[in-house]
């Protein structure tokens, strides 16, 4: 056994065989393991100082591109935002000169409808989540209450057998208007575009291109279909009964004849620029027992409460009318 190794024992002055116990072997291998891990870590670290792993390379490339694109987009958006700001100013100026009134600010214009950032102002606080939830809950309740009150109203109406009246009262906007952007001038004292003095504007004006469909706002009978080159131009009067009648003026052409019965939503004519009118628009009036009333109070059928509020705000501005 040439491999057998001996150790000199100075106490007994003899050579003893070297025998390793299990414990010693374990200790040794542990030492080897730890040593190798340390060396591995050191080497890994050194290697990392000078070279990147493929994954790191990919990540760096990703970051580089992301940063590049970010800067690019950011710069571009900066420029575009400036242009858009300018456009907003132009919009406001156009509004001022054409409608003779202060425009509703863009943020306000968005309010209530769409509702993307309805709760924006509540964000960023410690309890913002709670507050937002509460606000949402409140909104829900408010809506429910509105629906509830509406159904109660309807119940009462039904109970008093006024179904017919409900159908007959002019209660919708006589023109399709997305986001209510077509409302141009409300009821009340408005600057006359030609006379430049305040005059009672007995109805509401809606801007719309020539030929836009005009709807009957309630069930009724066509009382008169008149063509004139003065005043109201081509206009239609619908008698709704119950003391109500509505008038649609400056029409381009008619779709109904005198004496015909119409239902709410029927197309009765098309927007025009006839009579004393400075621009194509629809002039809409509601009369209750022969007296002109503010139509804004009668558009309750097809509007949400928020839209209704917004409409009242638009209509109450004292701008100029178009006839």
């Amino acid at each position, binding site marked *: 056994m040439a491999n057998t*190794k001996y150790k000199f024992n100075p106490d007994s002055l003899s050579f003893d065989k070297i025998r390793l116990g299990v414990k010693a072997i374990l200790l040794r291998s542990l030492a080897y393991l730890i040593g190798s*891990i340390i*060396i*591995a870590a050191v080497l890994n670290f050194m290697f*990392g100082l000078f070279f990147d792993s493929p994954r790191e390379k990919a990540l760096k490339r990703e970051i580089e591109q992301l940063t590049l694109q*970010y800067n690019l*987009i950011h710069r571009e958006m900066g420029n575009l935002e400036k242009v858009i700001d300018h456009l*907003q100013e132009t919009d406001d100026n156009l509004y001022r000169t054409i409608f003779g009134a202060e425009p509703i600010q863009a943020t306000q214009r968005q309010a209530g409808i769409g509702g993307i950032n309805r709760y924006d102002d509540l964000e960023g606080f410690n309890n913002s989540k709670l507050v937002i939830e509460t606000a949402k809950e409140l909104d829900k309740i408010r809506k429910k209450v509105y629906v509830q009150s509406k159904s109660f109203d309807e119940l009462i109406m039904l109970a008093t057998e006024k179904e017919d009246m409900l159908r007959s009262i002019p209660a919708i906007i006589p023109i399709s208007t997305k986001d209510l952007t077509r409302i141009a001038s409300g009821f009340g004292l408005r600057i006359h575009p030609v006379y430049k003095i305040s005059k009672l504007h007995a109805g509401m004006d809606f*801007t719309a*291109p020539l030929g836009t469909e005009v709807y009957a706002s309630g069930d009724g009978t066509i009382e008169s279909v008149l063509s004139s080159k003065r005043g109201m131009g081509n206009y239609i009067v619908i008698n709704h009964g119950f003391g109500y009648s509505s008038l649609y003026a400056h029409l381009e052409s008619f779709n109904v004849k005198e004496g015909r019965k119409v239902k709410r939503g029927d197309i009765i004519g098309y927007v025009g620029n006839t009579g004393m009118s400075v621009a194509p628009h629809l002039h809409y009036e509601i009369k209750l027992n022969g007296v002109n009333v503010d139509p804004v109070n009668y558009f309750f059928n097809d509007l949400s409460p928020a839209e209704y509020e917004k409409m009242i705000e638009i209509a109450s501005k004292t701008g100029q009318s178009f006839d």
Partner: protein
Amino acid sequence: MSSRKYFLDLSDLQYKRVRLPWKNKLIRFTIGSLVCVAVTLLYTAIINDMLGSPKEKVLSQEIESLKLEYSLMGREIDNSVRILDDLEQSDGNRYRPILDMDSIPSSIRNMGVGGINRYDELEGYDNSSLMLSFRAKVEEIRNRTTVQFESFKAIEERKNEWKREMEYLPMISPVNVIYRLGDGMKFREKHPVLGTPQWHHGQDFSTPYGTKVYATGSGKVIEAGWNSGYGNCIVIDHGYGYRSTYGHLSKISVSVGLNVKRGDLIALSGSTGTSTGPHLHYQIDLFGQHKNPLYYFNNDLTEDEYFEMIQTLTAQSKFR
């Protein structure tokens, strides 16, 4: 000393020190090193696979924060889109109908979006879709902004024209609204003075002698003086093909070439020319064609309102 190792030399039965030749030592060292490297690689592989290297972590974190920046910018972009939506609504629903301009078709508004893939350089990244969507959005905004800018420019021009037209066309009553309307535009079997059948091309106002006559629209005086049948007569050129004529005046207070504004006092009525009594003859021509003046103004003012209007219209300056 105790670490010295010995072995039993069987040839002479003596314990001798173990001495390794340098070659053996080298081999041992090499093997050791190789094992070390192998173990290193093994560890690295395991650690990187399970946890990722620290550097990777730092880089990933950086990417996350970049993504956050992107999402912040996304909000900004969304805001711009909202404003643009609003402006386009305003453009299409308010201004263009009022100014009688055709609305811009959506095909033009969204022109150039979704065409050829121009962002090849963005392919092959983990966040390719993120960057692509942002670039596309910005592109869309730029296109829409450009279209909107051009549109507003056109509207602005048309608006000025519209304003001017509204100021220049003859659109008010030339005299106080209380006066009775005389003969309108019609065929008269018998002319009150001449006695022959002929057309009456204007509108008469039965005004007492010396009633104030106002310009019904802004324009330039092209005739002021005696004109046979019309007597003392003023003709104002309003542009856009429109001319208004005021006849049988007793006193003319403007001269040819003067620019007048709507509401300016231009004359006093009378009974000059072929006239049986004091009245104002008011006539509107469009490109030489006689038009019914009644179609150009509304009798919807009270006397007070009429004079308030005259005052408002001429508040800044009279003639110009």
